[in-house]
């Protein structure tokens, strides 16, 4: 499965990074960087948790 970021919608709240620091981080400019877009079954729960906490629904797992 894959994490999809709606970049224009992302405002850098950073809650996804708190939920899944293994998969994504905010860079020095506060822009979200997906360190891994393709995730396997083992990380599915993390990816879903990150998508779930995004307050503006900018992340999806497909």
């Amino acid at each position, binding site marked *: 499965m894959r994490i999809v970021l709606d970049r224009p919608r992302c405002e850098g*709240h950073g809650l996804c990074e708190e939920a899944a620091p293994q998969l994504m981080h905010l860079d020095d400019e506060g822009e979200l960087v997906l360190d891994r877009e393709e995730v396997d079954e083992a990380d599915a729960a993390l990816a879903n948790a990150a998508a779930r906490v995004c307050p503006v629904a900018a992340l999806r797992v497909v």
Partner: protein
Amino acid sequence: MTPPPASDVDLFADDVLVDPYPVYAELRELGPVVHLRKNDVYALTRYDVIRGALADWESFSSTSIAFNPMANEALTGTSLASDPPVHTQLRATLTENLSPRALRGLKGQIEAKADALVAELVEKGSFEAIDALARAFPLEVVADLIGFEGHVRDNMLRWGQAAMQVLGPMNQRTAENFPIAGELYAWCSQVKATDLAEGSVGRGIFDAEARGTIPPDTAGHIIHQYLGAGVDTTMAAIGNVVALFGSHPDQLDLIREDPSRVPAAFNEVLRFWAPIHAWGRRVTKDVDIDGTVVPAGAQVAILLGAGNRDPRHYENPDAFLVERNPVDHLSFGYGPHGCAGQGLARLEAHAVIEALSRRVKRLVVGAEVRVPSNTTRSIEELPVLEVIPA
């Protein structure tokens, strides 16, 4: 399909506004959507349905976030009351200077202000928490952020309260507050860059307008939204922090033991007592909710606080437990219209909670006073009778 269950509850009756939780529970048990005959609205009551509606802007339009046509008319053209695709650009303009990204540089200043204020109050030993902290702190932060000076600073409280009151149905509270909300609107319509302090974010919004980064004539509207949406709600949340820590010393202890629980504590404060009572949407077509139909064009009332206490989603929902860290609470809304100022609200509240938990062992609070208010549910007076310092 059948119509949703109906109820004769009046969502905006004085006693319901002061303590809506019994009514929330009653409506939630009737169904995920309940037709309120007296208000002519369809109330969304359960967590999943509310979160789903907030994400589904195509079915649940923001063109009717208020419960009277005058307020909806006045909000036309703002990001708050628009749907995509128009909303997308307006939102980007609004958040250009308000997103966590834009606010990162302010964290240290906000923490220093919170700490100075909390230190002063702890030193006094007793204080009235709403005026001295819950109102004083957001007013200072937002005034300094936007660069307000002079009489505007003095009007922020009443203007911010009025802007939320007028979103209610056309009752006496709404009617009385329209002229005050009008003062705010009039001031924002004519404010100039030079009215705001140099180096402030407000001045930056005018600079962005001059550079063409944001459309012409939008700076005043953005400042209007900062003040209208960002003051009354944050004051409510910070007042709730003091009241809930006062009444739950064991929960304050948990934060004192481990300050990394500060964000979790704020999430739980927001979940437990939602600052916003009801928020409107209008359905654009017949919408099926669990086998019942909400007819096209109907006014919807999203009961954020009812969803936050839904036992289908949160275990033991009526208990205040900071360790549950409910990151998915509904108090900031969710999705494209999720609170644009939540980054600033978090900075402010985290700073206050951190300072309180570091400097205070226990807060002995007296009885809280509440007055009915159409949109924001907040404490009007809260005596802190004794501070036991850490």
